[in-house]
């Protein structure tokens, strides 16, 4: 492995590493716009210049691979002067729209100008004007004036999605980003160009003018959209409640995980958070009494629900758990089933249409935790048989988690007969749906940004999602509802935190043996059976 020196500090890196990555290992940040570790090298922005001893002129760090004995300086007077001039070039025709630009606050032009620019502008001519606020597709909007022509977006569409919608047109200072004729930026990963665009040229249409980014709080999370479990950051607006029409979760951003999603997430996941603040959110425990729906307190609801569950024989209860529940929830549900002796438990409900899938990130299974439900060892019954038993009045109490059975692949008549056949239907979930309208007891659950938990992705990687917000209304995390029910049924002390549930899970279920929230960390951890 080549040994080299950067700013007087020696280091050894694998051959082929470029100088930006090598410096990064020492904690030295070489400023750059066009370089992105996932994309090919373009060398467009020229900002990453460094001085290398015995080389007469400054070199771009992104396109220089390390060599034995190389001595690199990133802060010489000449480098600083070059950076400053290059910043001035980048900003020559820049409109300085910051007051109306959604990127302001997380813009690399702003950051690098303050760090490496701070020159007095000498531009006296009229700036070149280009198209502004041009929608490129369903999710992305372009401001060609703000673009610094780093070509990251073009390379993303060429190299990552292979769809090649974008190109750079015209010459010189008239160059601009645009769509090829007849094209639309509508691939399944289009939102990623917003993340990699270092400036405010490409922004999200659904985030446009919603919230200023400095008002956002972030929390590490996992996308609930499919079995891949892409690592994300949830951005929530809590400080100024009148912004973004009162929505709390305003955007999702990918979070780097080498083993799962790298730098990317798909558009379905990225723009799929609306249900968290949707109108259909269930906010209070409710009991249906004939035609009336009465809101009740949890202190009333827990004994009521536990009483119903205890009031039936074990074989008169059928449970349709959900593969959207976390490992902790599913484990507590398993304990509750064991306590009640219920055997008719399943979590599989086939969707009306099979989900789309590709060979990149998107998985056909649109549930975050199917693998977890398998591993926790819940059920073994057949969900359709449970519904049939309800239709035939053999199952009298039907407990449904999250599912909308009326939107499943099962015939509507069959589902309706089952729902109407059961004496007691309990629905537990985050949002109301046509199925929950048939429930006699409604237990409102907290959505994933409102709670802690873990999901197991299709590969068997257990990943943590964390709490960014308090639950809406009086909703409670599923593990908390199940823990309270277990306490009521069994008298066992209930877990105080999701982590306690996970500790019990790890101690009981062999696949999770030896795991803890700490060992899962930010990158996730494979279950025993999936480890190489």
């Amino acid at each position, binding site marked *: 492995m080549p040994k080299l020196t950067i700013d007087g500090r020696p280091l050894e890196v694998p051959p082929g590493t470029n100088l930006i990555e090598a410096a990064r290992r020492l904690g030295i940040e070489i400023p750059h716009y066009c370089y992105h570790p996932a994309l090919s090298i373009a060398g467009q922005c020229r900002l990453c210049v460094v001085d290398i001893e015995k080389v007469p002129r400054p070199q771009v760090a992104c396109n220089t691979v390390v060599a034995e004995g190389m001595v690199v300086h990133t802060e010489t007077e000449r480098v600083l002067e070059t950076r400053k001039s290059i910043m001035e070039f980048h900003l020559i025709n820049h409109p300085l*729209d*910051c*007051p*109306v630009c959604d990127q302001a606050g997380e813009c690399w032009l702003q950051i690098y100008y303050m760090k490496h620019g701070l020159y007095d502008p000498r531009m006296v001519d009229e700036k070149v004007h280009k198209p*502004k606020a041009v929608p490129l597709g369903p999710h992305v909007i372009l401001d060609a004036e703000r673009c610094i022509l780093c070509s990251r977006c073009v390379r993303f569409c060429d190299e990552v999605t292979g769809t090649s919608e974008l190109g750079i047109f015209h010459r010189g200072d008239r160059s601009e980003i645009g769509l090829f004729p007849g094209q639309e930026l509508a691939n399944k990963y289009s939102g990623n160009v917003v993340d990699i665009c270092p400036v405010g040229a490409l922004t999200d249409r659904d985030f446009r*003018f919603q919230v*200023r980014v400095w*008002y956002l709080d972030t929390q590490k999370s996992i996308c609930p959209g499919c079995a891949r479990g892409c690592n994300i950051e949830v951005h929530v607006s809590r400080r100024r409640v*009148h912004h973004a029409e009162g929505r709390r979760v305003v955007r999702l951003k990918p979070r780097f995980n080498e083993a799962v999603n790298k730098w990317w997430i798909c558009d379905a996941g990225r723009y799929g958070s609306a249900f968290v603040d949707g109108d259909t959110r269930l906010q209070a425990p409710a009991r249906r009494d004939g035609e009336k729906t009465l809101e009740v307190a949890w202190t009333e609801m827990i004994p009521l629900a536990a009483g119903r569950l205890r009031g039936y024989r074990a074989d008169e209860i059928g449970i349709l758990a959900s593969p959207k529940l976390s490992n902790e929830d599913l484990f507590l549900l398993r304990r509750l089933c064991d306590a009640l002796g219920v055997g008719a438990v399943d979590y599989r409900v086939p969707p009306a249409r099979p989900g789309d899938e590709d060979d990149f990130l998107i998985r056909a299974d649109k549930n975050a935790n199917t693998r977890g439900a398998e591993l926790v060892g819940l059920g073994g019954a057949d969900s359709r048989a449970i519904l049939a038993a309800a239709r035939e009045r053999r199952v009298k109490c039907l407990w449904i988690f999250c599912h909308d059975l009326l939107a499943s692949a099962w015939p509507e008549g069959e589902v309706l007969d089952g729902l109407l056949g059961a004496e007691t239907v309990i629905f537990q979930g985050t949002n109301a749906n046509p199925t929950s309208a048939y429930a006699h007891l409604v237990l409102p659950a907290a959505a994933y940004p409102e709670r802690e938990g873990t999901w197991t992705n299709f590969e068997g990687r257990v990943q943590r999602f964390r709490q960014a917000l308090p639950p809406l209304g009086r909703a409670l995390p599923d593990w908390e509802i199940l823990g309270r029910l277990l306490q009521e049924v069994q008298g066992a002390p209930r877990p105080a935190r999701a982590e306690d549930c996970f500790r019990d899970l790890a101690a009981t279920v062999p696949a999770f043996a030896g795991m803890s929230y700490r060992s899962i960390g930010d990158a996730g951890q494979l279950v025993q059976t999936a480890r190489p």
Partner: protein
Amino acid sequence: MKPVQRVYLREVASGLVLTARHFFVNMGRHLAHALGRTEARGAVTIQYPEERRPYAPRLRSLHRLVRREDGSPRCVACMMCETVCPAHCIYIVAGEHPNPDIEKVCTEFTIDLGKCVFCGYCVEACPEDAIRMDTGILEFSSYSRGGMIYTKETLLSLEPAGPDGKPRSPVPIPADRTP
């Protein structure tokens, strides 16, 4: 309290002495002024509110939103003032401006003057010169908290004070401000 203090007579007398001293000192100054000593000035009574002292040119008075030529607000809803406001009393909702060259505009701009501390930071922070505190209006008390909340329409309707510092707009009376 001592019995002698309970009668208050001594206090009444000392109060009278104080008042009398101010009266005679000021009368002396006015007389001296009338007799040609122009640097001598006695106290005067201003018949507020009909009469007012001139305000300082940098006075921070009731806010107003500056209008463009077409009457729409200059404000582009950049949220600088909302961010800097130490009292968190500015509430802005952003939207699209009908003119695509301007792009962004405030669809709602509300200041809760009941919370405002009149620091003027909002004016300092504004990159568009869209908010000013130059109306010269100082009397906008209210019988209700709601009456202290000024909306975009009210703030846009205000004019800057005249060259004499006198307000040119009447004090806006919100609908719920009933005496």
